[in-house]
């Protein structure tokens, strides 16, 4: 460690080394670790009026976490089914959106990396990127209009004779899943594209030459090779979907709550920061645990993702 530091100094000189170290420390501690520690600290405290903060009542407690499971202390013996259901549904929906994105993005990434050339490839990348210049909220509202009762899609389906009357895409969460799926498409495509692109074409041809049908080429050669990219993409899409707020707020049906919306309510309308922090921490910890378990299951190391 000490030799590494002295090497680092020699390589970069004093001024640059100090700048690099300080900026990294600032980034990691001030911007990432410290706020989360505050949140952590909040989540173990009672929601007290300002006068009582620092007073005798200001002690650590697990009640905010207990609330997530059992509801308020009065409703002894029963579970907080509302929040738990929303929590589970959010995670399942996030998994669903992630798999949906993977199914769409893997072929696109593979095509981009190995079949598209020159102008066509550039056009394709551009048409993937440009829509993301549009503001997230605007995009969500556009989806809402598109999927609305008199939106393009309903109009088309009625015109084509597939539907007699408009289908409520919003109430049935189709708009929400479509919006979420679309929102993070690039985060799925590019990591996969990056890994697949470095795959030697001859590997694909060799498998084909040895008699392999196309699906086995992907199953045995391309997908194992792209696994780090796939994991990286899935991780990001899953985390961001589970933590999305704008899209569920705008596109979600009236009856379906996203877990982030509950967190938002605790912070904002409920004015209960400790409770909100506890919920946020639960979401964060669960997502990280889930991702780590999945990585274990699919035998991907953290270092590979960073490649």
């Amino acid at each position, binding site marked *: 460690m000490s030799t590494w530091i002295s090497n680092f100094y020699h390589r970069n000189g004093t001024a640059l080394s100090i700048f690099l170290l300080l900026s990294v420390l600032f980034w990691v501690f001030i911007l990432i670790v410290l706020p989360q520690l505050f949140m952590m600290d909040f989540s173990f405290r009672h929601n007290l009026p300002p006068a009582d903060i620092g007073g005798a009542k200001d002690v650590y407690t697990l009640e905010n976490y207990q609330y997530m499971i059992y509801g308020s202390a009065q409703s002894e013996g029963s579970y907080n089914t509302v929040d738990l259901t929303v929590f589970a549904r959010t995670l399942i929906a996030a998994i669903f959106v992630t798999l949906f994105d993977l199914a769409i993005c893997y072929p696109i990434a593979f095509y981009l990396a190995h079949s598209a050339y020159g102008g066509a490839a550039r056009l394709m990348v551009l048409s993937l990127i440009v829509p993301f210049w549009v503001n997230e909220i605007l995009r969500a509202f556009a989806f809402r209009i598109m999927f609305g009762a008199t939106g393009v899609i309903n109009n088309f389906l009625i015109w084509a004779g597939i539907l007699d009357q408009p289908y409520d895409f919003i109430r049935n969460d189709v708009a929400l899943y479509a919006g979420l799926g679309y929102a993070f498409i690039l985060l799925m495509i590019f990591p996969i594209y990056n890994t697949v692109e470095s795959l*030697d074409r*001859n*590997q694909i*041809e*060799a*498998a*084909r*030459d*040895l*008699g*392999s*049908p196309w699906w*086995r080429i992907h199953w*045995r*050669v391309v997908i*194992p*090779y792209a696994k780090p990219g796939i994991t990286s993409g899935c991780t990001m899409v899953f985390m961001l979907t589970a933590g999305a707020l704008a899209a569920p707020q705008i596109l979600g049906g009236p009856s379906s709550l996203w877990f982030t919306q509950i967190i938002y309510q605790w912070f904002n309308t409920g004015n209960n920061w400790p409770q909100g922090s506890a919920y946020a921490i639960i979401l964060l910890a669960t997502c990280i645990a889930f991702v780590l378990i999945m990585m274990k299951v699919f035998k991907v190391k953290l270092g590979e993702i960073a490649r």
Partner: protein
Amino acid sequence: MSAGVDLENVWIKFGEFIAARDVNINIKEGEFFSFLGPSGCGKTTLLRAVSGFLEPSEGMVKIGGEDMKGIGPNKRPTALIFQNLALFPLMTVWENIAFALEVKGVGKAERRKRADELLNLIALPGQGDKMVHELSGGQKQRVAIARALAAEPDVLLLDEPLSALDLKLRQHMRTELRAIQQRVGITFIYITHDQGEALTMSDHIAVMREGVIEQVADGTDMYDHPETAFVASFVGENNLFKGEVSDINGEQAVVDTNVGRVRARLASLPKERQLETGDSAFVFVRPESLKFANGAEADNRIKAKIHQEEFEGQFWQVFLNVADGAKKIKMSLVNDGSDLKHEVGADVTLTFQPELAVALPEGPLAQE
């Protein structure tokens, strides 16, 4: 099982570019056949047409007498060994070898057994559980061969598979490849730009230039009886004297060159290409066919000045300037113990036997 390969009037075009021009070749079953040519001559393209990765623009590829049109690479009885081998890095050695069996739906135990047998064939017993990156270059080479053989192809296609190896290993692998071919008895089609590889391993060689097959022959014929100027200049080393045919004398041509009148064997060519009096001709003389004249010869006397000598142990390589000084020629003298050392700058007279030189119609040469 083994199968012959026939290319009939094969043309391969990429837009304006013609990669193969009316190629006609019969490769007999069980034969070791090489395509030899400089890079960009179209030999890899031909191989891809045989393996099925591309279809000829015109003409027919037949394997075992059957037209392969519309049959994809995964359905052809060929297996290709890639220049960079293209082993699957995330599979173990035995999984690599057994991949073709996995595709066929062979059970795991049987696959493993077959892989182990092939590992024995390529002299890598017990290495099946290693990962590919743990092997040396020569070992990877052999695994690639085993992986292709596991598919039980009728024809094995090899695209310069030795080019990544160092010289020693390359020479070793030549012998090995030839031995494996004889053991398994299937047709090998080998692509190379290295004439040493082609000459040592092949039953027959096709020399290619710019999409055209220049000549098909066995190794000794290709060296001793070249039929085009390109083959004469590409295969082995050759000294070239340009001139005009002044007389045809039975099996020999008399050619007036800038180093004087020389007599050389007349190459036996199809009638329309046969040299006639008055034609421009190239006379090729191998470095080992040149000798110092002892004064008794009537013909083929070339005056030269020694420019440089290089000792290579087995040979002396002598570089000379011929009379007008513009042209350098090379002669190889076997180091037989006699004192061959000649003074640099000495004027000498060289000679060669007419039957050891060949007169050919002028044509494009291999690049130096």
